[in-house]
């Protein structure tokens, strides 16, 4: 069953065409790494998938929803599609637990007790059970990012989007976030990750998509792609993997 189907999606920012016709299909439980240079359109593509960016053309079906920018329909879609950002974006005026409980309570309308019990499960999953009463600013970057992941998971999404979630972290903190992502992947979560961590893409992602100038330039099974890159651009990219 396809969890995500993208057909000929286009997006321009002013005169700059960032996405020039993207089509791809992602099955349930697939882990897809989106890689490519800065400006290749990979983050824009990810943001189109939960409606943060409005596409100029094409069609997106995700987690059983067809993309529509009508507010109510978009909210329904977002209940099933989680996203985690590079800069964490936790709510600074709320404790860790409050950050996680909020959306299940107010957006999905489940009871506070139930939301809290889900939140504690998710915190355990990301290894932060003991920090539920801390405020975001009291946590390290890696811990904040793990809370952000828990916050998104508490909505029980069918698909998770990760937008360069380790790019703002020191190398030693990157590891703790990658461990969480790896666990999530092995639990069978359907995931799309924009990432610069090539080793992670190779070992954890089932599929890797290399984007270049707004198009999918090369894609395939991760191990195979990194071992035997086909196109000249991807070879170059893998040769100097950072940016």
């Amino acid at each position, binding site marked *: 069953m396809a969890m995500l189907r993208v057909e000929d999606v286009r997006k321009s920012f002013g005169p700059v065409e960032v996405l020039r016709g993207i089509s791809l299909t992602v099955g349930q439980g697939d882990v897809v790494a989106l890689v490519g240079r800065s400006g290749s359109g990979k983050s824009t593509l990810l943001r189109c998938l*939960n409606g*943060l960016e409005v596409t100029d053309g094409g069609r997106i079906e995700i987690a059983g929803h067809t993309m529509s920018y009508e*507010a109510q329909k978009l*909210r*329904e879609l*977002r*209940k099933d599609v*989680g*996203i985690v*950002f590079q*800069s964490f*974006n*936790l*709510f*600074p*005026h709320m404790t860790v637990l409050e950050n996680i409980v*909020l*959306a299940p309570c*107010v*957006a*999905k309308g489940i009871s506070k007790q139930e939301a809290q019990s889900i939140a504690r499960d998710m915190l355990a999953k990301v290894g932060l059970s003991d920090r539920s009463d*801390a*405020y*975001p*600013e*009291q946590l390290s970057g890696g811990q904040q990012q793990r809370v*952000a992941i828990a*916050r*998104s998971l508490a*909505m029980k999404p069918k698909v998770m989007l990760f937008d360069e979630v380790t790019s703002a972290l020191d190398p030693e903190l990157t590891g703790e976030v990658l461990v969480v992502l790896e666990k999530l992947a092995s639990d069978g979560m359907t995931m799309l990750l924009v990432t610069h961590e090539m080793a992670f893409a190779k070992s954890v992602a089932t599929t890797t998509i290399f984007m270049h100038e707004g198009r999918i330039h090369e894609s395939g099974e991760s191990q195979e792609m990194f071992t035997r890159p086909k196109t000249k651009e991807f070879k170059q990219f893998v040769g100097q993997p950072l940016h």
Partner: protein
Amino acid sequence: MISEFDANAFLFLLKSAQWTVMLTLTATLMGGVAGLVIALARVSHKALLRRAATFYIGVIQGVPVLVILFLAFFGVARLGLDLPAFFAAALAMSLFASGYLAEIWRGAIQSVPKPQWEASTSLALTRLQQFRYIIIPQAIRIALPPTVGFLVQLVKNTSIVSILGVVELARAGQILSVATFQPFLVFVATAALYFAICFPLSQISRRLEVKLSGYAKG
């Protein structure tokens, strides 16, 4: 009849100061409610609301308080309402406060970082829920110091309603200075009372600024 600046005279000043406080409180409350509505309209997705709010703020900020005061006074009279001058004064000060508070609060709302909107919209919150749970709580922290600062200005600006014959603190000082022929003494006492009202407010503002600079401590 008061003829020298004695305890009785001071009591008169003190009683008049009540009107200054009342006027400030009324303007804060009414102006605050209106200001919040206007601030929200100012950041609305609907262009018409945004434009109307911008126009309102522009008018209030572009017209002297004195003129707003006269407009309120004669406007109320023209409507055929025979209300005490205090009502016109309260109306004018509320209008004045609403325009300035709306602008302070608009700025505070807009200075909440954009990723906070993105994160909360991605969690399927409605726009109203975003305001209520994410944006307003953070905007309040940003807005508190300038809001209290404005209220200090408001306390002093209420002195202008003396022109309508409302006997608040400044008007009381004027009356006493004529009655006692001790203008300097009277106005020192008047100034002291204004200071007694404003100083605690400034102190609160300063303390809030320190306290709210960190979330965990707040």
